[in-house]
């Protein structure tokens, strides 16, 4: 990597790793409150919030009013990744508790596929603006990895849950 490009990546990574704000808005946090015992509702909300961040990302890519596009896209990608990580953690949590999450898991898997397709399309469109792309290349690669691994893990979990359900080893939703 050329020194200038490496410096650009380094600075942008440092700026965004140092963001300490919550990626969720207050109304979103309010919606999530008290849903810990309702896997279906909680996972549905997380999918909705993650999708909203991805839509915002696409918007930042196409909005002619955005001045520092590289930075703006990086911001949106970080938000997407943070919320996707939380979605994934929640899936793990319910799986550990042996909750029957087959229904919301199908929704999550469908969303994983959708997110993966959108991120790939985003990348294809983004590489043309090289300097800008370098600012968020690492994060985009992380996002694609996270969604790819998530899709694989969620499919595996669904298959495990289907098997466990046959033996009545899952806790049914209320």
């Amino acid at each position, binding site marked *: 990597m050329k020194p200038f490009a490496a410096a650009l990546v380094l600075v942008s*990574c*440092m700026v965004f790793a140092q*963001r300490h704000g919550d990626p*969720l808005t207050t109304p979103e*946090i309010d919606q*999530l409150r008290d849903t810990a015992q309702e896997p279906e509702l909680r996972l549905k909300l997380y999918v909705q919030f993650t999708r909203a961040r991805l839509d915002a990302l696409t918007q930042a890519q196409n909005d002619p009013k955005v001045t520092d596009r590289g930075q703006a896209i990086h911001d949106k990608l970080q938000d997407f990744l943070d919320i996707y990580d*939380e979605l*994934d*953690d929640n899936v793990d949590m319910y799986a550990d508790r042996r909750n029957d999450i087959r229904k919301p898991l199908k929704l999550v898997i469908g969303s994983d596929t959708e997110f993966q397709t959108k991120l790939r399309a985003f990348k294809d469109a983004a590489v043309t603006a090289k300097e800008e792309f370098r600012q968020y290349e690492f994060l985009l690669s992380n996002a694609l990895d996270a969604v790819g691994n998530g899709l694989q893990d969620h499919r595996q979990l669904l298959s495990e849950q289907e098997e466990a359900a046959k033996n009545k080893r899952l806790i049914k939703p209320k």
Partner: protein
Amino acid sequence: MSSTRSFATFLLILALAAPFTLARDETLQQLVERAGAARVEDQPALYSSAAERQLKSADKLYTEGKVEEAQAAVADVVSYSDKASSAAIQSGKKLKNTEIAVRRMAAKLRDIKRSLAFEDQSPVQTAIDRLETLRTQLLTKMFGKGTK
């Protein structure tokens, strides 16, 4: 003859499964001791694993209302993440994996923090901030080389 063969197969399976059973049943203290004694390039994965374990414990303890014990577990998450990051930076190995592990733990801590009473949120926020600083250090190491 057939029963002898079956018993031998059983023993073989037992022997092959032993290391995995051992790893799963290993206590936190044993894991941390193993991490401390390991080669520096193996330490990031082991300390990350210890941090992830304590993160699960913290979540459970907060849910059970054991706030002080949960805070101690959160402090361990930071301490082991710190050691994982230092080892990754020192060895130059597992930098990306460690960064991803730290990022995911920060995400989980944010989720935990939102479920807590306002007065209990501060130590969790401090931990999140520290993990974000560790991420910055890891990223600096990953991308810093080419800038010199």
